[in-house]
């Protein structure tokens, strides 16, 4: 059964057609890669799914619910989490406080209980802290929990973003270039992390330029060019697709 279904999605910015009639599905429990040359509209598709942009036309279904008119925080609450291509951490705060941001939407205490620290609020805080620490440990950053986000290495900042997204208890996670600015050992670690996320039953959609990573972790690839889907299939099929080789991989196709 498909967890996410995009149906003929279109988005234009002024005269520029960023996304032109994109349709694809992501089935529950899978890892799907969205690839394509720079400017193909991949991040725009992500921003449409997460509600940062509203589509001009088309439909987005999460499960059997249309989410295209929901505000971003509601979409997160439904179970779609994301990371950002340009790292968007709360730079001045500690790592653990960053992850607590993800816990926010699963917490309930309001203004009154926050102001008077009622017993229920204190219990909830402790549980959230436990949850945040567990997610930090999951991505391997437990020792960094008290360090400011801006003092972490770029690779660790990306991991921290993933931990923060996981803290929202998502069913579906969107990773926008998770291996960006990572070195080889970090990328190898990231591949294992993606597998571990999948084992938790979380469906993954990712944009990535590192073809080695994409071919290893994804069971399905969707190729975008000029805002339109030009190919869809398993990594092996995509590798053999002449249209993809011509449009995207070019002369370097031998490398993959």
């Amino acid at each position, binding site marked *: 059964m498909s967890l996410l279904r995009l149906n003929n999605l279109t988005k234009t910015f002024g005269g520029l057609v960023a996304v032109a009639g994109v349709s694809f599905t992501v089935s529950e429990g899978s890892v799907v890669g969205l690839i394509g040359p720079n400017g193909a509209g991949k991040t725009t598709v992500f921003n449409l799914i997460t509600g940062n942009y509203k589509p001009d036309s088309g439909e987005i279904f999460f499960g059997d619910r249309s989410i295209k008119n929901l505000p971003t925080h509601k979409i997160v609450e439904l179970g779609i989490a994301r990371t950002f291509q340009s790292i968007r*951490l709360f730079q001045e705060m500690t790592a653990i406080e960053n992850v607590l941001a993800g816990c926010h939407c699963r917490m309930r*205490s309001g203004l009154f209980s926050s102001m008077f620290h009622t017993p229920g609020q204190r219990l909830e805080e402790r549980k959230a802290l436990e949850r945040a620490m567990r997610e930090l440990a999951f991505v391997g950053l437990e020792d960094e929990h*008290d360090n400011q986000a801006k003092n972490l290495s770029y690779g660790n900042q990306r991991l921290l973003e993933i931990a923060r997204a996981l803290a929202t208890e998502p069913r579906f996670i969107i990773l926008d270039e998770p291996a960006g600015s990572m070195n080889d050992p970090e990328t190898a670690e990231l591949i294992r992390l993606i597998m571990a996320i999948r084992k938790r039953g979380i469906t993954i959609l990712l944009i990535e330029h590192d073809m080695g990573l994409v071919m290893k972790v994804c069971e399905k690839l969707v190729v975008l060019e000029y805002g339109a889907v030009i190919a869809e299939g398993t990594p092996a099929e995509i590798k053999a697709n002449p249209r993809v080789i011509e449009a995207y991989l070019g002369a370097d196709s031998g490398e993959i």
Partner: protein
Amino acid sequence: MSRKPFKRSYRAAGLILALLVFLLLPRFLSPAWLGVTNDVGLYAVLALSLNIILGNCGLFHMGHAAFYAVGAYTAAILNTMYGIPILWLMPVAGLLSAIFALIVARPIIHLRGDYLLVVTIGIVEIVRIALVNDVFGLTGGSNGIFGISRPVLFGFRISRPQHFHYLIWGYVAISAFLFHLLDNSRFGRALKYIKQDEVAAEGNGINTTHYKQAAFVLGAFWAGMTGTIFAAKMTIISPESFSFWESVLLFAIVILGGSGNIFGVLLGAFLIIGLPEAFRDFADARMLIFGAAMMVMMIFRPKGILPPRMRHYNVQSLLGRFPQIINRHISGDTENRQPQSAGDAS
């Protein structure tokens, strides 16, 4: 971790000292000087309530005197017309001010930075002009309202500066304590996330519009309650007490003292309200000195005298009840983390 007990005793000593000053100050200060510290106290609470909006949430709001005015006038009108005891009117004035904030903030909440600043300046001017023009025939025009009764607390009538000292600074202490608790909570964190990166906050499930509005409503509620005490202290209120200049002063207190830092805001209130009084002898030159001091401050400490401190979470002690989780994860290296996460999924 070893620093912790030392820090705690340090803080306890500070609190005891503050308590002694609070209790004994009226013995050492003349009533005229107590009048000044009482003013500082009122501005301190107002600045603390503005700090929720400007310091914690990062919304450039320069119309805080409008909420203060709505609270003060609500209390003054209900007190002089129906004789309701003034302190009972505190929550009513706060509530009316909060409702007013809800109505005016809703359409402007999405504005950013300087745009919001300009609109809030407009709000405070509209309120002042409405008061001058005797809106609904209730506000007494430019003469204002007089004959507001003194507050009565447990049968004791508060009228002299030393009495007000205890009322006002007690109120400052309670407010500062509650705002401190708020800072360290889900609500307080949400405001800080919004200040740092609104897109990331929304993208992680925080309803940014809701929290920005809640910051306005809470700040206005507190300003309205403070207006009640102001009305009772002055027994006469007029529109000129709620001018744009008051909003600028409050804005300056928060920015100069350290936006987002409660102690910084209290210090800012002393510096901006208290110091000019101390230099009254210099008469005209004091505003010059004041302006120069502000400029020097903004150049050398742009985040305020006391910038907001990073919050440290004491994970070990807070998780004392669940030691196995932390220990398992901290001791576990990458190799045995993977089977564990498989266990999580089942």
